[in-house]
């Protein structure tokens, strides 16, 4: 008998459990979009190069096109559909809306998911490639425009909305208590 090429798995997405049969080749991205009708997560390149498919896995960002669905079992998956609190937009979403941090909107769910993680990563004191002082006891660096740009660079936007995306992330981070400097608010 040929080995099985599909399995029934259970995914924990936005706090809900979904049981579904998946072809073992299916990426988490395709499972979300084609099997669970969660199409907010976008496919821009299917190669981990553009960031449009960014979701949060156990609170940390990941490109769902490079993740097999079977490997996502047991992880807490957050997609763009799970970011708002019911009808109330998350402050990051509201800032994108108010500051026009998008144009066509296709990279937007990935940008927003990345931004959520960026704000967390920064608050937890994680340095980036442009952080001046990376000693363990340096504390949380100020969130400058340069820091935001560096940390968001895995998310491409072809419309060229970067300037207002950076402002939206800065505004939301400041509202969440971050020390924001030189971010052109």
């Amino acid at each position, binding site marked *: 008998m040929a080995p099985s090429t599909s399995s029934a798995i259970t995914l924990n997405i936005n706090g809900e459990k979904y049981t579904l049969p998946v072809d073992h080749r299916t990426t988490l991205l395709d499972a979300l979009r084609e099997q669970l009708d969660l199409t907010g997560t976008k496919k821009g390149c299917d190669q981990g190069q553009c960031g449009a498919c960014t979701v949060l896995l156990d609170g940390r960002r990941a490109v769902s096109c490079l993740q097999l669905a079977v490997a996502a079992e047991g992880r807490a998956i957050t997609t*763009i559909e799970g970011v708002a609190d019911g009808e109330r937009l998350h402050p990051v979403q509201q800032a994108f809306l108010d500051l026009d941090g998008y144009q*066509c909107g296709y990279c937007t769910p990935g940008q927003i998911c990345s931004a959520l993680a960026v704000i967390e990563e920064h608050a937890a004191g994680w340095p980036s490639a442009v952080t001046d002082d990376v000693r363990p006891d340096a504390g949380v660096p100020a969130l400058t425009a340069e820091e935001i740009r560096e940390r968001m660079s895995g998310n491409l936007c072809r419309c060229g909305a970067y300037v207002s995306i*950076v402002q939206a992330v800065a505004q939301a981070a400041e509202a969440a208590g971050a020390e924001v400097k030189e971010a052109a608010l």
Partner: protein
Amino acid sequence: MTTTTRIAAVTGAVGSARTRVEGRDKVTGAARYAGEIPFAELAHGWLVLSTVARGRIRSVDDAPVLAMPGVLTVLHHGNAPRVETDYVGMLGRPNPVLGIFQHDRVPFVGWPVALVVAETSEQAREAAEALVVRYDEEPHDVAFFAGHPSAYTPQDNPMLQAETEKGDVEAQLDASPVVVDEEYTTPEEHHNPMEPHAATARWDGGRLDVVDSNQGSTWVASELAQLFSLDPASVRVRSEHVGGAFGSKGLSPHQVAAVMATTVLHRPVRVVLTRRQMFSLVGFRSPTAQRIRLGADADGRLRAFDHQALSLTSTVHEFIESSAVLGRVMYDADAHHTLHRLVRLDVPTPAWMRAPGEAPGSFALESALDELAAKCGMDPIALRARNEPETGPVSGLPFSSRNVLACFEEGARRFGWADRDPRPGLRREGRWLLGTGTAAATYPSGVGPSTAAVTAESDGTFTVRINAADIGTGARTAMTLVAADALEVDPDRIRVRIADSDLGPAMFAGGSMGTRSWAWAVTVAADELRERLSPGGGIPPEGITARSNTAEAIGALAKKERHSFGAQFAEVAVDVATGEVRVRRLLGIYAAGTIVNPLTARSQFIGGMTWGLSMALHEEAIRDRASGGHVGADLAGYHFAAHADVPLIEADWVDDPVPDDPVGIKGIGEIGVVGVAAAIANAVWHATGVRHRDLPIRPDRVLRAADGARHRAAEGARNA
């Protein structure tokens, strides 16, 4: 039909910033794009593309693939439905690449040779990768370079007059005390909208229904009807949300493939392009090799103007990258010559890409102007002011409005241009050399016929129906504001429906013409509706609807030079150790008629400028001469500007009334790109003293140029 100027804010909706009406859907993931609409019994199509650059298909071994799990059919030239490609559509004759699977000839790497359709996308993809196609190969040529021996001047191209000429350029050059004669090159560039092209086709009650991602559903529906010999009324194309387009989302093989497959299989079929497939199937910007010769008096007045541009086209279709058109608008001279030449290569046909012609053309021309300013010892803005034409340099027609100098004046004030020391290579900050540069911008303001319907509903709201496409421009929101002013009601009472060919014919979103064209039709229909609404009169349950068609009014528009204008300013820092160029700031000031929604308009200008930055420093598609295909046809191999590349960019505008125009809108989608690469290159020269005439300005080019300059200086010292 009324053609009075009406957009002059009645309720003040036009001109006031408003967030996008579909914004909430976009930030919550609720907005569904073309590949995201569910259908029962949906099958998935996967295109198979040629791996050779020229030759014939010897065989398509479909039998083993048909036996693979889930595979429903394999369409190829041996079995596919016939399509008609001998017609003239909205933009002329169709690109032959739409005639997929009609013959065995292969004219470039990436030509569609088969479509595999299966129950799931995984099955379709694996089967497509397993399909063996054999070819009889022929020698190919994909090498583009200045002076290519087979270059020719296109004759009777319906889209562009290839050459214009007045006066004796050679005589005026000989008589000019100051001459610039330089060559500039720009590379092959790709649109790369974030959303890959996707279409789902199905037959629904005798009608063909296509859910697609495109720039104009009227256009796509009409072409599909002609390709498949259908009654135009039996084709419906919808395109609710579009994840970027930039000129690449018109007709492409994926729509034709989806229609073929649904016709064969009698179930809905979706075909989505992969990122790699987009590099050969949806058009691109041709590389260019341009020569510019300027002859001027010592005070900068132009005596001779010559701009010659070479670009490539395919062996199956002719497309001209109209790089030399700028001089026909921007600068006059006693003798004036513009020329486009083409070379046919074994590559896909290029297409319109955001600011086609003007983007690469302005890099060459606005760099040459800067070189002339330096040679004349003049400020680059003063040089442009000295050469402001009264009328169209080639047409002799008056300008509808031309406020390019106002843009320079406002830009210079805000940028701090007056304090600039014009001498190059003087400013240093650690390892960084600093410089500033400027360039002019222009883009045509066109308009296309459109129909619209505006309905007064019985509940006091209004419904606007216009087959516009919102490719990220904010078209829905703009039409809401335009209708609000025309109807003198609050924008919240207006619902706008777009992107459905059943709404009636309308202009596509292209050539910076969408908003102007749609606003005109919406305004006329709204005016008509207001006349029919009696004060205090009741509205029946079906509402009261007024319709418009702008074809006649547009045909009666006075012939003028109608263009948007702008001024671009850049500050750069050049790392002397690594050759890296960092743009520190960009400022663009535009004169572009009425700005409908300042919030989204600013985004669009800044987006265009971001493209200009990306073009100046990053973008470059590399073709392998041996295989004829791309190297690194993906978003890692083809880098466009990411967050970390883009500084604070500012865009603003000056008043630009267009007195004789019924809408006063000029169009802003493309002008933001124009001139930015030149402003950056001019700033790099100001920083380093070295001219960069080849894009992109890569670190290796900066380092080699610096080495070259040092060697020349050393030689000079030795010879002295």
